[in-house]
């Protein structure tokens, strides 16, 4: 992972704060307007952040798909916290959102195996109920080969 410039770091943090406050990623125009630069520069920063695995862009575009653990698209993992309803990328990331926020949360999900709906909570910093498993199909060494599949 290459080190970030101060400017790229500021954009990375802006993207995350925007997600926290609005439950969605900022558009390139919103990012450009916030920092007072051109949309093309926002695209260049997004591409560098993508290259460093700080965010994930939809393939072939400069549109943000993931700012891990947040998802820009609807998924089977919905996390209610901070007065917002966020989508997580996967079963692990549904825990990643309250972990990142440092907040309790209510989680609604559909089991990837049986498609049954489930509810989990993070209360006082711990999960409940404790029944269930989180399955990782790919070994860590393969996680970043195809993040959508992962």
């Amino acid at each position, binding site marked *: 992972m290459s080190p970030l410039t101060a400017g790229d770091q500021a954009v990375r943090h802006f993207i995350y704060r925007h997600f926290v406050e609005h439950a969605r990623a900022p558009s390139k125009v919103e990012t450009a307007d916030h920092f007072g630069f051109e949309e093309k520069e926002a695209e260049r920063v997004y591409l560098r952040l993508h290259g460093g695995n700080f965010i994930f862009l939809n393939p072939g575009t400069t549109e943000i798909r993931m700012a*891990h653990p947040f998802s820009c698209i609807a998924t089977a993992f919905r996390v209610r916290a901070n007065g917002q309803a966020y989508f997580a990328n996967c079963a692990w990331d549904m*825990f*990643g959102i309250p972990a*990142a926020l440092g907040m309790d949360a209510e989680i609604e999900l559909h089991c990837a195996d049986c498609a049954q709906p489930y509810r989990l909570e993070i209360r006082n910093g711990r999960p409940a109920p*404790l029944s269930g498993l989180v*399955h*990782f199909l790919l070994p*860590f060494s393969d996680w970043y080969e195809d993040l959508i599949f992962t």
Partner: protein
Amino acid sequence: MRRGAALNIEQAWDLALGWYRDRLDPDFAGRSAGDIRAIFSRLGLTGPFWAVV
């Protein structure tokens, strides 16, 4: 056929805490391979599946 690995709910939560608790920090700058190994190791996630290469 891949079998993968399964974590129980507490393990998955603890992994999420280790991985994401500093993600919103303005200074978060990613993780080195050593950082990742340390997170996995603390949770007992060892072996080829969790190997950081």
